[in-house]
């Protein structure tokens, strides 16, 4: 079993919260939608505050920034793909291209980064920092987010 297979097997056993009556949004037409990225790669702008181990907060990333630091604390995944090409985690250039082609309406002015290694109960991101980040994107007029896990 290789490292990825071990990590997937382990992750599959982790406790998972239940969502009763989950929300469902009927999206606006994609060609008119403002789209943002939400990643759990703990990426942050090079002059922004780094992530601490167990950090339950988030960082906002301006859409024009490409000088992003990988601040994730887990040693259990590949760290080099994102250094060869930011888009393999944070597909910002792909979204810009889709906006230019008219496939999506617009790229959001800001995106959101969390750290993937959260406490098992994920209470803070459910009740505090997650809703705060979503509110920030709503203020920016975001209609759709694509979430990329690390």
């Amino acid at each position, binding site marked *: 079993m*290789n*490292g*990825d297979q071990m*990590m*997937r097997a382990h*992750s*599959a056993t982790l406790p998972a919260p239940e*969502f009763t009556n*989950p*929300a469902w*949004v*009927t*999206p606006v037409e994609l060609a008119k*939608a403002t789209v943002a990225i*939400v990643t759990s*790669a703990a990426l942050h702008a090079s002059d922004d505050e*780094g992530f601490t*181990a167990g950090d339950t907060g988030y960082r906002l990333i301006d859409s024009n920034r490409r*000088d992003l*630091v*990988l*601040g994730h604390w887990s*040693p*259990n*995944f*590949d*760290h*080099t*793909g*994102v*250094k*060869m*090409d930011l*888009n*393999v*985690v944070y*597909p910002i*250039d*792909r*979204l810009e*291209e*889709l906006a230019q082609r008219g*496939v999506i309406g617009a790229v959001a002015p800001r995106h959101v980064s969390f750290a*993937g290694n959260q406490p098992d109960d994920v209470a803070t*991101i*459910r009740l505090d920092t*997650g*809703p705060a980040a*979503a509110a920030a*994107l*709503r203020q920016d007029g*975001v*209609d*759709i*987010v*694509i*979430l*990329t*896990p*690390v």
Partner: protein
Amino acid sequence: MSVLAHVFEAAGIATIVLSSVREMAVKVAPPRALHCEFPLGRPLGRPLDPEFQHDVLARAFALLNETSGPVLADHPEVIEADDQPVSCNLPPRFDPSLPPSVDEARGLRKAYDRALVKRGVTSVGRVMSADEVPNALGMLHAIANGQDWTTAGLPGGNTIAVCHDIRTYYEEAALELVDGPLPGGRAMEDWFFDRTEAGATVLAARAAIRDSGGKFPIWFYMTPGQR
């Protein structure tokens, strides 16, 4: 990610998750998920392959056409993590008076600097700069040879952060030295731990801290779990 999808959807934003652990996507059941069996750390699958990345995004956005959920679809392609160490030359021994890993780290500095110029940013810097990497390896060498880790003077006193900075320094330098195809998902990790003196030093220091009664989180997270 699946948890955050519920949170953002509740705030009025439509969400699509690129799932990396299918069982978790099934359990948490986000509104829309595209499971991507790609190397962990590469949710869009292939670096420097815009066409493939667009294919992933197109399949993800297609889930927005569903009228009810949860929706869980699978990307048809599976990309396995590469288990073969990347092909990458290491500097020759230059100063035999130094521990091998210290000498090696010094020898990689020019490659690291080239990488920094090219990318304009580095992820080295949790607790130390690139200048401090050779000395930190000297400290780990001492720990591997019996020094108490708590008095070794590790930057920040943080074994995990020190190991992140060392590994990052090596990986960023190695990306300038790689021969042949782009490294796959685990190829650089395998190179670091199986081929370099630094990787051997980290593993030896980790074992020494464990064997001397160091607390589990102090040593375990110095390397990937399977090591």
